[in-house]
């Protein structure tokens, strides 16, 4: 079955991001396909490569990047939400005159249409939020 996942909250503050990650792993373990993971609202903050969590805690951003790489997942960060919250890739930096970027490996920035498309193309979509 084809699943998509929507993540509405950032790392650490709410468990939503942890739950979404565990759910994504379980989806793959069950042999299902993940069409897309979409990061919206504060969820875009899962995609900054600038975090340095305590050594004895999980690294939420890195494990998303790793899961994405291992399973070739399409992990999309909403551009409008990212602009409000300061998540930037090279293209966004150029367009908005920013002197730095922070997007982590494995994520891409795109529009909300990608969320609707995920809803259309997937058999199931599950929302994690506050």
């Amino acid at each position, binding site marked *: 079955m084809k*699943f998509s996942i929507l993540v*509405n909250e950032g790392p650490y503050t709410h468990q*939503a991001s942890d739950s979404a990650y565990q759910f994504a792993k379980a989806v793959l373990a069950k042999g299902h396909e993940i069409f897309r993971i979409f990061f919206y609202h504060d969820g875009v903050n899962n995609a900054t490569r600038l975090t340095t969590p305590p050594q004895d805690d999980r690294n939420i951003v890195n494990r998303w990047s790793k899961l994405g790489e291992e399973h070739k997942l399409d992990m999309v960060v909403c551009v409008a939400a990212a602009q409000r919250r300061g998540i930037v890739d090279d293209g966004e930096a150029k367009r908005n005159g920013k002197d730095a970027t922070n997007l982590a490996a494995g994520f891409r920035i795109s529009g909300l249409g990608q969320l609707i498309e995920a809803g259309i193309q997937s058999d199931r979509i*599950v929302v994690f*939020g506050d």
Partner: protein
Amino acid sequence: MLNIVNKSPLERNALQSCIETGTGGAILLIEDGVYAVARGNSFEPTLKAAMGKFKVYALAPDLEARGIADRVMDGVTAVDYGGFVDLVAEYKSSQSWL
């Protein structure tokens, strides 16, 4: 429909609304939502009454994290993340009561 609730029923109205609105199917409690299934909490009678209409599940890893895995009320089925996936697959749609 699979209803997913992640909030404590003693703090917010999400589970109450879900129970009043839903036509049936299942309720899966995750994150702080799992407190709803701890024996002796003041929401217990409401959840018990709802069991006539909904199958009630709770996410085991969230129960364990909160130290309440040993006080789950009767009629509730604990599932792991794999069971969560199976529930999503089983029902045509899911709604997260955020």
